């Protein structure tokens, strides 16, 4: 894994069938594993926003972003290192209510980790936790020690860039200007 960095790609694309497949194929062709992937509607109408994280070297990420951006329907693809972005994952835990009642420490752990109980009933409680992978894993491992976890799921990462504004609007406006010129 030496000289490999965790990169986060933020991609905007038209909402058309088959694009996800084409984007992931850029990774598989180069035998790069996708660490996490999230796709959902973006703030711009009709455009989807992808957040993809992967480990690779700098030369490779440059090439992959170029090849992704080239796909018809992809509006923009950019990559970031952790310092340039604010990145988060969400985890859901289903915990045994009985165990929580038996061991008061469990609630304390939840609080210490800034997790939130969103639902409780006699059999289980649902806890959500947002944060970086390590924070979520730390909560998970701690809870596991109390043998109270019934289900656990962690989402792919989503990320927001740290520069001032969302630049896609501007980028599209520039492109349109060039097109009309």
């Amino acid at each position, binding site marked *: 894994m030496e000289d490999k960095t965790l990169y986060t790609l933020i991609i905007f*694309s*038209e909402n058309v069938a*088959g694009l996800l*497949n*084409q984007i992931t*194929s850029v990774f598989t*062709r180069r035998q790069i594993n996708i660490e996490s992937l999230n796709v959902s509607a973006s703030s711009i109408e009709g*455009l989807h926003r992808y957040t993809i994280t992967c480990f690779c070297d700098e*030369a490779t990420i*440059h*090439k992959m972003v*170029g*090849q992704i*951006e*080239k*796909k*018809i*329907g*992809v*509006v923009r693809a950019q990559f970031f290192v952790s310092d340039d972005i604010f990145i988060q994952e969400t985890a859901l835990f289903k915990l045994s209510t009985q165990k929580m009642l038996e061991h008061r420490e469990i609630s304390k752990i939840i609080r210490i980790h800034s997790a939130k109980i969103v639902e409780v009933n006699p059999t289980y409680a649902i806890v959500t936790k947002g944060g970086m992978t390590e924070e979520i894993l730390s909560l998970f491992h701690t809870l596991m020690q109390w043998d109270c976890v019934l289900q656990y799921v962690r989402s792919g990462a989503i990320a927001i860039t740290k520069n001032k504004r969302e630049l896609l609007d501007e980028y*599209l406006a520039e*492109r*349109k200007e*060039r*097109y*009309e010129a």
Partner: protein
Amino acid sequence: MTRTKISGAEILMRSLVAEGVKTLFGYPGGAIMPVFDALYDYSDRLHHILVRHEQGAVHAAEGFARVSGEVGVCLVTSGPGATNTVTGIADAMLDSTPIVVIAGQVGAQMLGSDAFQECDIVNVTQPISKWAYQIRSAEDITRAVSLAFHIARSGRPGPVVLDFTRNAQVETAEYVPKKVGFQRGYEAVPPTKPGSIEAAAEMINAAKKPLVLIGQGVELGEAQKEVRQLIEKADMPAGCTLLGLSALPTNHPLNMGMLGMHGSLASNVKTQECDLLIAIGMRFDDRITGKISTYARQAKKIHFDIDPSEINKNIAVDLAVLGDCKKTVSAVTALVKENNHQAWRDSFNEYKDKEQRLVIEPEVFPKEGPVKMGEVIERVATQSHEKAIVVTDVGQNQMLSARYSRFTEKRSIVTSGGMGTMGFGLPAAIGATFGRPDRTVCLFVGDGGLQMTIEELGTIMEQQCPVKVVLLNNNYLGNVRQWQELFFDRRYSFTHMLSPDYGKIAEAYRIPYTLVTEREQLDNAIAQMLSAKGPYLLEVAVMEEDNVLPMCCPGDDVDDMLLEIK
């Protein structure tokens, strides 16, 4: 005002006419029958060439596109018809050839049910096409077709697949022509970065030993004249890639020959000596660079390209000039100073002479022994006054055609570069005769490659396509045999190949035929072939175990070329 509704199949016909299509290559079948039915009424405007295999249709469309600069169109049925075009689509992708493949598909309501002749061709072709799209309703046809042609021909051209469901062919809709507007998801030509033109001119002005690499992008971008003006003004020697061979006349004093594995010794040696490498519309394929890690390390590098993803893909460069090379190259030319690099230019001569003596003389001007491929190709070049379109298949015949053909006109070499698709030649030559009916089309093909798509002789017979087929028969899969000789201890594993009696085959297809076995017969036979009106098959029995030289062997530095095999 109410417009009349017409069938989707007819909307397709009108859309094709609106795109300027006049010729299509195809083969009918169940899922495309409504379109073929509509075609019946449009045969005065749309000339459909019935091929003998869909692979033939797609290669013909490629050949058509390569020589004419227009989009080649191919019309096939679903399932096996569509999958038979896959090789050609991948070929067009690697060689940036603008084609549109329209394939029938089962009705939208049946998609996903493994219906008869259903194949998910969009998913099959997505990784090997510029764009693949399924048309599922008649209303969507005009938009999809205009977008397909726009994508195929603009920017870096490439193949587009339209998967046309049967219901969309038979449903009716109004024909409302659509123009392609601004596309958020596609920018054909990237903007040229401010300052890059000036920086390129500065680097060229400062160079003492510049070398220009001319790729097919120069042909695709119609920048032949602009590139010529640049190299003449700055006095810079140039080498051409296989696909860029006719972008600069072969006999231009600054043309130092083909680059790469079987290219000229001088251009490859000088790649490792130049102080500035100027790549225009080429992609540093491994057949050009040889060993990547040692390639032109001493040189600064400028890369002109329309495709940003090509920059730094294989070879890291110091400066990228993005954009349409017709514009960027002429902008740079305006800023470069007139120069004279005579000493640098003259330094190529030593290597030219060496190659002439050790490689060219024995291959092209042998005094005795069996006929050689190189001499056949050279004689055809001479007798066609260097004006013919040269189509090649793949193998030794291809490399020697590239080495010994001479070009005076642009868009004159049609060959499968990136894919190296055997069987490309014959159908591509058919397409070329429709793309440029005013020009002579010569095909050089091996015994292996001819037999891969030999069924297209049927198309030639029916259409009387004036393809001058030169079959260079060495009774071997020669190129592979050469590698076995060099790298596998002469163990000729399945490379000897028995041929049919080509004379009888030609006769069966009613195509005039001559067999040449002796050097003395060659000139007359070529003259006869070139003066014949229609198609012709000239078979030349060439030396069986000949080798293409020089050769930069895999893994070697590009200037480390094998000149002789002892």
